[in-house]
């Protein structure tokens, strides 16, 4: 039986949702998975609600778009409100930004609050890297891809100027995710 995991990253355009999706998918490819990824496109990806969806599979993927999320990353309140009910009950997981989202208590889905924006702004002194903080927390909490693969993906797709900042953000995220696992 082919195992499939579906991940939806969401936020508003400009938060780096599409880049985070690209890195996550690329890391999956490095780990030898079959990946199908699709993004918001055009005007959506620039300011309003934005999402990136990645299907991870051990074998060829039939329908390549997301049908139900096993994991949701909600980087904004709007993203959480829009997509929180599309997560698989019981086994699903929602990672949300503590600074923006008040989680609903009637959902039968595990929640993990991440102070991604706060860490990004206060600790890393750059508000643009909360997407990578989320990726760090995600891989530490779920092991969906290996840390080595995501580092390699960052080296491949992030320009040299921002590479060390992004690797630091990844590390900070992994520490946050570790607390959840521990």
């Amino acid at each position, binding site marked *: 039986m082919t195992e499939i995991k579906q991940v939806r990253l969401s936020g508003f355009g400009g938060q780096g949702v599409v880049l985070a999706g*690209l890195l996550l998918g690329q890391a*999956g490819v490095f780990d030898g998975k079959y990946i199908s*990824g699709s*993004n918001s*496109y055009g*005007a959506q990806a620039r300011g309003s609600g934005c999402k990136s969806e990645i299907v991870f599979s051990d074998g060829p993927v039939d329908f*390549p*778009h997301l049908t139900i999320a096993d994991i949701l990353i909600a980087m904004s309140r709007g993203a959480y409100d829009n997509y929180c009910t599309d997560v698989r009950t019981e086994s699903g997981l929602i990672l949300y930004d503590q600074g923006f989202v008040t989680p609903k208590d009637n959902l039968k889905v595990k929640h993990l609050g991440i102070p991604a924006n706060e860490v990004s702004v206060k600790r890393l002194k750059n508000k643009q890297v909360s997407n990578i903080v989320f990726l760090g927390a995600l891989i530490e909490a779920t092991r969906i891809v290996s840390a080595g693969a995501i580092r390699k993906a960052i080296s491949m797709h992030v320009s040299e100027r921002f590479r060390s900042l992004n690797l630091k953000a990844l590390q900070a995220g992994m520490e946050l995710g570790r607390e959840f696992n521990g």
Partner: protein
Amino acid sequence: MPFRWVKSPFPKGTYYFSGNEAAAEGAIAAGCRFYAGYPITPSSELMERIAVRLKEVGGVFIQMEDEIASISATIGASWAGAKAMTATSGPGFSLMQESIGYAAFTETPCVIVDVQRAGPCTGQATKVGSGDIMQAKWGSHGDYQVIALSPWSSQEMYDLTLRAFNLSEQYRVPAMVMADEAVGHLRETIRVAPRVEVWDRKKKKGGAPFDIEGEDGVPPMAAFGEGERLSVTGSTHDAYGFRKTDDPEVHARLVGRINQKILNHKRSIIETEDYLLEDAEVALIAYGFTARTSLYAVKRLRKEGQKIGMLRLKTLWPFSDERVAEVGKKVKRIMVPEMNLGQVAGEVKRCVVCDVISLSQTNGEVIGPELLIETLKKI
């Protein structure tokens, strides 16, 4: 032999490419060394990537003033000896139609990738559709043939763009890759093999470039600058390219040959794939992104005990009349889901006597599994 195995110009391995990027790599692998185009959503990433890659492999890239100029430059480059291509979406594809007829009549190898969006007209630029299928076949006036392929994944954007070049060179015909927005923007794991099979147009010193007795109906093609006397015209012409605009025999022979050289080779041009059709009572006939939804639906409904299968059309033109007719004899019903108002469903109806149901969606969204499964449960 006109075909050869060459080392892939892109290192063998596994990559994470969007369909549009993969198509650019497929073109380079086929030997494409000229691209002329005008950027248009949702095809632009192909142009962006090939602009960089052509520079790396010593090819030529030109951004033209519009799509008419783009296809014209592509045809010119082909006659200068380069493997040449352009890419566009619906509005640009419309502008190219006159010159596609010219390319077909002058037997110019060239590749056009159409990443289809929701039309008609400028429609919804960022949204998906597959409304250009009939236009690919009938867009220019007069009787001619083209070859049109339909990729359903990033991998096939690579494989079928490469194949489009090979077919185009082999048969001296415009070959089209009829992608759609969903496949063009889909980013997937793709595998690049260490070696690829590449066809080159045949050449023969002093050979007439516009007629040939017997054989495969495809004359040799010299390039300007190779020392041959060449005259290329969109008017009716004899074996050496001289205009013969009031000779009924020459016209009938030329029009006959440019059609027959494709139709006589349908069996090697057409590719289809069967999925769970052996005992099927209902068959889906699908292509492009919609075939992905269809395969998902077929597998789901099989689990619930429905005898259902799928025929996937990898080649749209020339049309798979024979295979569709065979499927039509075995099943009770055929459903054709597509992101247009039944363009391929009409072709299917022409080939079969069983019931054909057209499932159309033209709202700029892909046909999702739920709609397809629900509709299939009702029939």
